[in-house]
């Protein structure tokens, strides 16, 4: 995630700041930007949410269709996650088929939802082996000011918690019911900036940091997913410390998520 507009001078400056526990925008190194969640703005979607994390904005829409289950899990619904790095969100986003960067983002968000078992997939079975609900989580990045990983995970969680199963439209039951959600994974993403580790990097910070580490916890403080990215490294101690910091700081996002329910 190189950013040609951020010079080497900027890099030195930001690293010095971080070494003192400070940041260009005045935040502490483990402080999230302001978060705002709105839900239900898209009427054509089964669920929707817009998340602002500082200037980063992500719109998530949930669609549910009926399909056949996979042969090896006849009782489970399915789930698909896509991310659209819309060209209007960042000058560096090219139109065209998804690239490595977009694929990594979609897969990390997908695994964070899927492997945490946030969705009760067995409750999405309509008829074993024949008909199940297929959940589509489509994430539209509208403004990129960094930390798409946490903003997308949060938008997906908020949209899922806002979603109704469209039983009536598809003639499955007489009433639409809430999509069954079993836990609330929240991801926290850290950046390695010089020898410091910062939470919730902006685009400018991402342009000068060397490594990224994302960890998601559920509401009980257990780990549900993690991913290290970029071509730098973290020490073993930094990783273990970041995991603890995440547990201590994800309540900011967690409260925002609870606020919508």
């Amino acid at each position: 995630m190189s950013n040609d507009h951020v010079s080497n001078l900027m890099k030195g400056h930001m690293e010095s700041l971080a070494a003192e526990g400070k940041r260009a925008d005045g935040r502490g190194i483990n402080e999230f930007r302001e978060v705002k969640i709105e839900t239900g703005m898209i009427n054509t979607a089964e669920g929707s949410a817009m998340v602002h994390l500082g200037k980063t904005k992500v719109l998530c829409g949930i669609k549910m269709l009926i399909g056949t289950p996979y042969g090896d899990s006849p009782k489970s619904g399915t789930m698909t996650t896509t991310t659209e790095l819309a060209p209007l969100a960042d000058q560096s986003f090219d139109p065209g088929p998804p690239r490595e960067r977009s694929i990594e983002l979609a897969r990390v968000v997908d695994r964070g939802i899927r492997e945490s078992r946030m969705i009760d997939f067995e409750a999405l079975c309509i008829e074993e082996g024949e008909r199940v609900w297929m959940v589509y989580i489509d994430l539209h990045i509208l403004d990129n000011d960094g930390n798409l990983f946490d903003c997308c995970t949060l938008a997906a969680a908020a949209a899922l918690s806002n979603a109704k199963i469209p039983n009536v439209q598809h003639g499955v039951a007489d009433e639409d019911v809430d999509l069954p959600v079993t836990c609330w994974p929240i991801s926290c993403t850290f950046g390695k900036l010089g020898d410091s580790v910062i939470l919730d990097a902006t685009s400018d910070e991402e342009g000068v940091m060397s490594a990224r580490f994302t960890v998601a916890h559920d509401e009980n403080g257990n780990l549900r997913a993690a991913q290290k990215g970029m071509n730098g490294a973290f020490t073993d101690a930094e990783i273990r410390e970041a995991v603890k910091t995440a547990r201590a700081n994800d309540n900011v996002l967690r409260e925002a998520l609870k606020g919508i329910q």
Partner: protein
Amino acid sequence: MAGQTDMELIKNGVRLDGRKPDEIREVKIVAGVLDNADGSCYLEWGNNKIYAGVFGPMECHPRHKQKADRAIVQARYTMAPFSVNDRKRPGLDRRSSEISYIVSQAFEKVVMVEEFPKASIRVDMQVVEAHAGTRCAAMTAASVALADAGIPMRDMIPACASGKVNDVVVVDLNKEEDNYGQADLPLAIIPSTGEVVLLQLDGHLTPDEFEEAMDLATSGCMDLYDKMRAALENRYGGKK
């Protein structure tokens, strides 16, 4: 366009959603809603919801598309998968490709492309909720985003459709009218000169109905034009 239908879409001169034949749906335009884009716009038109963002003038990629004596406009119209009732597959389909292409060409008429040789002006239109008329809504939003970006233009381009429903010519079809109507005529004009930069027609119109449809769509464009200017004044606090 279903052509003939038994569905009563107009009763006593009033449409299903309460509008008169020459009335457009409610429109809300907000300029400057995105931080990264050089210019942006959020537009609601009836239940349609659209974001438009502009970057440029910037270096043109791929390079073989560069023009030695002018900029090109690279407009891109896409619909979010969740913007319609049946989920749409992500990516450009043939319809989106065609709309992107004709919208790019329409904007090349008003943007002062000769001032920026070899450059590209990128216009991205994201339809996040769709209920008929999205190409006009997207173009309108894109005009405001271009103005918000300070791109030199001869004028903005309002776009509005007219059509035929139950043998009555009406402006700005809603979703039921689009599905069960007899004709759809999206139009985009340059208000200062009255020139037509985009016109499509599907369906069936008599010569007289065509004249009336042109009149109604033009009038709809002028209504929009006022709202577009108001949105910019609202953002910049004065005449622009």
